[in-house]
């Protein structure tokens, strides 16, 4: 990602970031359902 930003600044990296953000959010929601956020944090 870093080397990609150095060479060109198109929104592809933003798209990857968006996917990672959504994946992380889904993971936290699933973790909350399975374990409970109060036990994680």
């Amino acid at each position: 990602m870093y080397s990609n930003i150095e060479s060109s600044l198109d929104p592809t990296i933003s798209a990857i970031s968006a996917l990672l953000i959504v994946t992380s959010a889904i993971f936290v929601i699933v973790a909350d359902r399975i374990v409970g956020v109060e036990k994680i944090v």
Partner: protein
Amino acid sequence: MRTGAGSRDPLTTLATVIAFVVLFVATFPLFVTAITAFNATNETVFPPNGWSLRWFRNIARQPELVQAAGFSLVLAVVSSAISISLGVVSAVALTRRKFFGRDLIDAFLMSPLLVPQVILGLSFLVFFVRVGSRQPFLNLLFLHVVITFPYALRVIRSSLTRMNPKLEEAAVGLGASSLKSFFLVTFPQMRPSLFVAIFFCFVVSFDNFTATAFLTVSGATLPV
């Protein structure tokens, strides 16, 4: 005593407002990044000049990014698995056993958290050059295990400290071997902390940039 929204004192209201401001400041950059991904033009601007999913399709057209993501994923999974395994063994030893130098060993095992990642990356680079190791994956795996291990140890150890050791002792007293009592009594209680440890290790490994940049060529892992 009054309860409900009407009884909120000014201090609670102020604290709630501050909490929302902090939440906004912390998440707004993520929100902006996610929204710019939907730009119709090839400029990274906010708000977007039109809406499109072309940049998501463009990810698949860049094999180096897909390859780097796969490499990072494998590296994160393998290093997390090793760190969790070592973390469980170390946490049990440090929590359940008393031996000379236990606190010193504990502090030493946590030291990668305190050492700046630039120093860690440079040290590993010098070490691998010195020993002549030419296995990029194994070199990175070694580094990532060292980086993620303290997270696994800390989370698992805090969970073990909260557990009642008498439950294990009771199982042993009823005839179970120490290994059996661990897997039937202790391990099920550790599951939430293992889940947390896996999450931490995976995230720390997957998005590590600073130390990883010393041991890899540009573009080998997703962040680099």
